[in-house]
């Protein structure tokens, strides 16, 4: 079997062309999902019998928390791809995804804290899931700081890739912290294998919101990566042509 198609994926020029075709579709999909999910979740979903309307924050909190973790997994995968196949694009993806992941972790922590006050009676609790999410935020900061500290781009790329792979050992701890330690935070809202405990009117909009967040993440990542690719390749002919056709 030929592996050349795989290497084509790593070409910045090819990425720039294909992403400009993808971008409108991703934008339409994610904005549509976001609109549907927000209206459905915040207006039409029934009130929770215990928590009243305050439960509605899960429509932001849960997608952000899911994304915060899968974004870190993506960093590690990009790190492996970058180290093994020496693809420049994998490093661009790693560099551009790290700040988005950090933002998602912050959003998850912040919304959780707002929700915690009326429900648990406290903004912050040293509970396993909360603390491990905070650690995830520090991991993101560490990767971003390492990238900023090393001036040589190739060295920085390899070093952050190694760091992303090493840090991945903390992800299962975050993921299963709720199952392993019986603490304040409730178990995972969504599992693929089991039927959700919520009624469909409540979890369907949540599912839509999760898809919307993944869409927005892809959109944001593609836009950041396109900018970074142009910045790195600004001396090549195709990048100049792309820049000139835009202005």
């Amino acid at each position, binding site marked *: 079997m030929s592996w050349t198609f795989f290497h084509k994926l790593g070409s910045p020029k090819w990425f720039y062309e294909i992403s400009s075709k993808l971008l409108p579709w991703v934008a339409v999909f994610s904005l549509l999902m976001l609109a549907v999910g927000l209206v459905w979740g915040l207006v039409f979903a029934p009130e929770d019998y215990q928590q009243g309307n305050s439960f509605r924050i899960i429509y932001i909190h849960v997608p952000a928390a899911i994304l915060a973790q899968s974004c870190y997994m993506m960093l590690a995968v990009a790190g492996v791809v970058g180290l093994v196949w020496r693809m420049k694009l994998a490093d661009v993806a790693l560099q551009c995804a790290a700040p988005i992941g950090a933002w998602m972790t912050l959003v998850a922590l912040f919304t959780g804290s707002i929700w915690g006050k009326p429900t648990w009676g406290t903004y912050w609790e040293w509970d396993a899931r909360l603390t491990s999410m905070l650690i995830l935020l*520090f991991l993101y900061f560490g990767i971003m700081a*390492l990238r900023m*500290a090393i001036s040589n781009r190739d*060295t920085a790329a*390899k070093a952050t890739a190694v760091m992303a792979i090493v840090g991945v050992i903390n992800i299962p701890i975050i993921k299963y912290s709720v199952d392993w330690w019986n603490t304040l935070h409730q178990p995972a809202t969504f599992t693929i294998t089991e039927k959700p405990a919520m009624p469909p009117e409540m979890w369907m909009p949540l599912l839509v919101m999760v898809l919307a967040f993944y869409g927005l993440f892809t959109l944001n990542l593609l836009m950041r990566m396109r900018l970074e690719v142009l910045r790195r390749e600004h001396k090549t002919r195709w990048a100049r042509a792309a820049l000139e056709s835009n202005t």
Partner: protein
Amino acid sequence: MRSVIWQLLQREWQLSWRRPGDVLNPLVFFAMVITLFPLAVGPEPQMLQRMASGVIWVAALLATLLSLDGLFRSDFEDGSLEQWVLSPHPLTLLVLVKVLHHWLMCGVLLVLLTPLLGTMLALPWSVIPVLCVTLLLGTAVLSLLGAIGAALTVGLKGGGSMLLALLILPLYIPVLILGTGTMDAALQGLPVQGYLLWMSCLAVLALSLSPLAIAAGLRIGVSE
């Protein structure tokens, strides 16, 4: 191969004897941080006993972290690191010997100091052996994980000790939680075997996987 390991250990041993300050500084730091706590929170034995294991663990963690910053620096500066990378012997093995020496010079000496500081913090004699065993296993993990960060930051100008802390402290947290959990169980008279097995599990995992990451980090640092 065996002679290479032996020679490397001898070299490291001689180097640390020539500069005893590098060995003593983490120990003095460890003792001083622990001394600060009774001064800061008050000398009541009950409160000290309650905090003792946490204070000792955090102090051990910081002392290891500080001593790790220079782990590869002098070898990097005088070029011996490049010779390691170019040498026919596997780099993973060489770094493992280096980290082993660091653990002997830092972790094991901290553990030797612990019974004294533990009794000063009003820990009962019955839990001191447990504390020493967990610290012995834990500091090995701390040295191994920390060496990854030291390898990644070795090429940075102006010292990367702050960055090293930022990179490595999140990875230290599982060790800290397990270590203090063991002590809590021991203080309440509960069985600690399960905790000790988990600590050993972490140590074996770090021993087998982190040399790969350390070697990769050093290759990146040297290639710059």
